[in-house]
């Protein structure tokens, strides 16, 4: 029986629509899914687990990169001061770089890493074993050895440059400073690059598909950031300017590489999702924009642009990992390759 009242009419319409279309979409009613689920995989559930890491990790990647490459810059400055003693500024650069290496690498980095642990009080368990097949284990050892070189290296360098002890002991300090600083440079290059291996050798598609690019990006961003911090501290020397150009040039090339090297659904988190924009914005800031600013002589702005870019792209890479790890189709697509 039909009624003429509007509310009854509405119900008649709904009945008509249900009969014709088999489904009635409406406000507050989710008709998607049943009875046969159409989401990818098992009800769209993630196949691999997204990373549990929080803000400490991208910040650690940033400071670890600065610390490691600062030690390299310090070594370079010391070598060429030794060759040509007239390069007095090099001593200043070396001292500042070693302070940077020690503060970022032996204080900030371990604190950030320990904060991210689920059970921070057990952090020393990292040094229970040495596993070359675990990038995390290698990283823990690299960071420890870096700290064990950078801190004594800095102390010896300071005592030597301020001539606190006389005679032979000062000569001994000079040798010790050299050995420890070169040691921290070797572990420093690994500290800045291993983080790319760390996330590249995982089950997260957007990460492992770019495992070759990641160490280059993280390491070079570390070198450029270390030079940028020193420039912002007032060391406006041509050597650091050259390193700024070098790092920004490599980062620009990586920006092109990343936009060409697409893997369809497997790494769509980078190319289609918002977090991919963090990576690209970061790469623009520490790539082309840093070069342009440097060409126009805006060194402090170029340094600042590079630093922000290096931080933003690291945040982006972790964010992309979370999106990619939660996407079942990415995992299936990556394995069909």
């Amino acid at each position, binding site marked *: 029986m039909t009624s003429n009242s509007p509310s009854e009419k509405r119900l008649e319409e709904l009945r008509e629509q249900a009969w014709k279309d088999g489904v009635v979409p409406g406000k507050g009613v*989710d008709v998607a*899914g*049943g009875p*046969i689920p159409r989401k*990818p995989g*098992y*009800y769209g*559930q*993630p196949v*691999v*687990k997204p*990373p*549990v890491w929080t803000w400490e990790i991208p910040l650690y990647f940033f400071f670890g990169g600065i610390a490691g490459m600062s030690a*390299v*810059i310090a*070594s*370079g*400055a010391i070598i*060429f001061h030794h060759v*040509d003693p007239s390069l007095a500024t090099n001593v200043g650069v070396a001292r500042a770089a070693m302070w940077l290496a020690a503060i970022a690498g032996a204080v900030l980095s371990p604190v950030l890493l320990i904060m991210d*642990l*689920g*059970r921070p009080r*057990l952090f020393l368990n*990292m040094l229970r*074993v040495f*596993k070359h097949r*675990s*990038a*995390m284990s290698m990283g*823990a050892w690299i960071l420890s050895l870096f700290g064990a070189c950078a801190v004594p290296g800095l102390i010896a360098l300071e005592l030597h440059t301020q001539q606190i002890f006389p005679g032979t002991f000062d000569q001994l300090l000079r040798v010790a400073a050299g050995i420890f600083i070169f040691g921290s*440079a070797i572990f420093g*290059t690994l500290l800045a*690059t291993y983080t*790319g*291996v760390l*996330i*590249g*050798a*995982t*089950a*997260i598609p957007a990460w*492992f598909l770019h495992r*070759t*690019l990641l*160490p*280059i990006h993280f*390491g*070079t961003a570390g*070198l450029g950031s270390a030079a940028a911090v020193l420039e912002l501290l007032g060391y406006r*020397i*041509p*050597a650091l*300017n*050259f*390193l700024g150009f*070098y790092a920004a040039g490599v980062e620009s090339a990586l920006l092109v590489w990343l936009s060409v090297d697409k893997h369809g659904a497997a790494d769509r988190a980078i190319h289609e999702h918002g977090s991919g924009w963090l990576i690209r914005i970061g790469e623009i800031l520490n790539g082309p924009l840093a070069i342009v600013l440097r060409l126009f002589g805006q060194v402090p702005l170029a340094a600042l642009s590079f630093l922000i870019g290096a931080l933003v792209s690291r945040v982006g890479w972790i964010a992309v990992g979370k999106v990619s790890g939660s996407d079942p189709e990415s*995992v*299936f697509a990556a*394995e069909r390759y």
Partner: protein
Amino acid sequence: MIGEGIQSTNQRKHSYVRDKVEVGFFTDPSVCIGCKACEVACKEWNHVPDDGFTWSGNSYDNTGHLGASTWRHVMFLEQDRQKGNQVAGPMSLDDDPFRWVFLSDVCKHCEEAGCLEACPTGSIVRTEVGSVLVQNDVCNGCGYCVVSCPFGVIDRRPEPLHDAGGAFKCTFCYDRQKSGLVPACAKVCPTESIVFGRLDDLRARGAERVQQLKQNGYNDAQLYDPTETSVRGIHAFFLILGEPEAYGLPPKPQIPTIYLKSAWTSAFATAIASIIATLVAFAFFS
């Protein structure tokens, strides 16, 4: 086999740990009734905290997925396919086929285990029976195993749950096995959909079961045991109906250590390039 009573490998005492025999789980959805006794038994025996009571809307599955506090997970698949030669009323006619499949998911205890390789503390170890075990008192919760498992099994337990911060997954009831007991989930399974036993016996049993099902019209029955990939086989393997993707199982799981070589090569190249660039900078631009 069903009907063996206390002689079944799911019920009788064993000495696999002492004898260092490789053991496994064979999980067969064709006899699973979706009772979730395995989930309950696992939680009760292992004192695993609950992980929330929410309605997923996904069939009868309100568990969702394996995780730090979910070590057995019964999946409920609704598929538009016929279940073997079964004819059970109008729903199974050719033009409107439907089947409901239940499968109890669990840690795979890989032959080459991503979590074990990734663990920087040595907390994750291989036991005498070939299973993969997390030593809870050693784990410091770094979270690297979480992204290294190709099956998304292991996870870090969040606050405010009991024993939060560490990584957890199925222990294969190692504590029970040491005492000659069968894992809790297999012990309680009323239809022996979960079978516990020697791995070689189970593999033979699985292959036999696939043949049997195919004769009964289950044309898409297959074993899920990725022996061809770098995972090199799993100790808890499954019989599945249809494609692995529908069960959220990766079709070709790989252990992430295979990516190490190319990533480290790139890292070393970057390290050398950075040193050279720095030397050039100070040599020619001072």
